[in-house]
């Protein structure tokens, strides 16, 4: 009996607060927008039959007709993909150096990578406003060393969004790659050199393939949340950067069009399902390989 209780409490909690809300998002995405509270029709009060017959795909058709949404989805995917590649380029050398560091340093380095993760996300993004703005620290610095004569416009451009995403998500890239590289047996590299590889060849032929799972995991851990990101494009991207998380937020709060916002959410979810499934499969494969 205790077992039943143990299972059912978290189970029902998630059913009520996770699954049911999702069902509602689906349902409302198929409803019509009305000027009422709540601002959609039909509602449950009118009975199941009325509910089912009045649902339609109008909102989804609307999303295809207005090219704002298409552009937002495409732009989100592009920004997330570019940021992921940049994060990999920044994170891999750090993870590699950490794995090569003397053993007594590694715990400290680990902590230094994780520490920013515990500090507020919002503050970390905010810190970049002062750096990237026209009269910000970066421009002051570049001006000071004489590299530029005109201030660079970085804030409120996609570049600022890339920087923000790389900065906030790089620990997610470093940790899985570090885990893979740390497990890498050093004698494999020596064996490759012994068999005639130069350092670079050994890195390319042995280190990279053997840290592949870490790289894949890191890329998904960055790409998936970056795709639905809202705070970074809002603070750093300005009005010129289109990302779907921001569109959803605005649709909901500014336009109060709940059915369209729900439809946007449903499609975002559909886009995310592919990378999520791929990620799960990669994790599973690695778990099996470990056994």
């Amino acid at each position, binding site marked *: 009996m205790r077992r039943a209780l143990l299972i059912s409490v978290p189970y029902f909690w998630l059913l009520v607060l996770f699954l049911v809300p999702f069902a509602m998002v689906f349902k409302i995405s198929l409803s019509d927008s009305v000027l009422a509270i709540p601002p959609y029709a039909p509602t449950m009060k009118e009975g199941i039959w009325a509910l089912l017959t009045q649902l339609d795909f109008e909102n989804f058709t609307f999303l295809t007709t207005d090219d704002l949404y298409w552009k937002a989805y495409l732009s989100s995917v592009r920004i997330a993909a570019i940021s992921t590649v940049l994060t990999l380029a920044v994170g891999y050398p750090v993870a590699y150096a950490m794995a090569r560091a003397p053993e007594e340093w590694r715990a400290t380095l680990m902590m230094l990578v994780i520490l920013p993760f515990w500090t507020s996300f919002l503050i970390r993004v905010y810190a970049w406003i002062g750096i990237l703005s026209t009269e910000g620290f970066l421009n002051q610095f570049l001006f000071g060393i004489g590299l530029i004569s005109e201030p660079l416009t970085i804030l409120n451009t996609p570049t600022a969004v890339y920087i923000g995403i790389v900065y906030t998500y790089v620990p997610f890239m470093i940790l899985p790659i570090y885990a893979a590289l740390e497990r890498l*047996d050093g*004698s*494999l590299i*020596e*064996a*490759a*050199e*012994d*068999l*005639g*590889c*130069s350092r670079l*060849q050994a890195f390319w*032929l*042995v280190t990279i*393939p*053997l840290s*592949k799972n870490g790289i894949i995991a890191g890329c998904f851990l960055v790409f998936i949340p970056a795709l639905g990101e809202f705070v970074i494009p809002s603070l750093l991207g300005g009005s010129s950067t289109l990302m779907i998380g921001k569109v959803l937020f605005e649709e909901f709060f500014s336009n109060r069009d709940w059915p369209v916002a729900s439809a946007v959410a449903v499609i975002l979810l559909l886009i995310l399902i592919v990378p999520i499934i791929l990620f799960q499969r990669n994790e599973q494969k690695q778990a099996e*390989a470990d056994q």
Partner: protein
Amino acid sequence: MAETVFAPWDDPNETPLITFQNVTKRFGDFVAIDDLTLDIFEREFFALLGPSGCGKTTMMRMLAGFENPTEGAISLAGKDIAGVPPNKRAVNMMFQSYALFPHLTVWDNIAFGLKRDNLSKDAVATRVEEMLKLTRLQKFARRKPHQISGGQRQRVALARSLAKAPKLLLLDEPLGALDKKLRQDTQFELMDIQEKTGTTFVIVTHDQEEAMTVASRVAVMDEGRIIQVATPERIYEGPNSVYVADFIGDVNILSGTAKPFGREMYQVDWGGGTLATAASAKPFSDGQSCHLAIRPEKISITADRPEADNAVQGKVLDIAYLGNLSTYYVELPTGQTIKAQTANTRRISRRTFTWEDPVWVSWTATAGVLLDS
């Protein structure tokens, strides 16, 4: 003409393949190799034997190119190899962990080194097939390292390191990960392959039985120095120090003082009641402290006092039955213990002696080796 015995080290006209000339290697304050000089000849199966931390792995890593000597020179085929990176040396290594690339198949592992030499595809394939055949791995060519057994992995590692036909093959504890039965079979396979390919092998091991079985010569090392280099027989029968005698096989050490007693004969006062008579070509002065090392199988155990150069009485303290052999631990009235070994040549014979039986242990004057340190 009778077949000549393979012993290039006794031939002054032979030039060694590898020479260590006063090599010292330090890691910070730690001296891993201490002023070491050694020659290894072509086609030798040379064993570096010693406890962990004696410097044997460092010597091997210097040969492979992963470490460079702090002082002194190492030459391979007459050329100084200091500073030549591992990928430019005609030396290959079989790693203790095998270091098989887990993401590549057996075939690709063996082909890995060949591909680095920019050989044609066909040449690589031919050589890989040859190596697979040599190590009897044809059936497993398409498998990944985790899909084959430990013994098969060991053979892949061997095939991979032999594929480039190196002048010198280094084997770092090659059989350490195998169980005893498999290890014995593999030892003979290794010797066979060494003979077939004519490659010079240098093996590092801490297992004295393994070194004795496979090697043409054994170097016994301790704390960065070589204590003795000789053939397995010479090492066993004529150790040059107590350390070597004790490290290789089982031994009784009787310590005392020597007293000359005729030509190349000495009497040793070892506190065992009687003086022990021992032959030694090495001179000892009167009263010089010495150690008499005698292998247990050279000591006889009898119920009655035998006619022998040396005989002492004691009682059986313990018996270790090993199947083919039995070792008797005989306690002397002075409190010392002597080990005597007898072969169990007959099946289920009644044991002649049991615990607490009074017995005589005896040995001849030439049974032991007289050592000064």
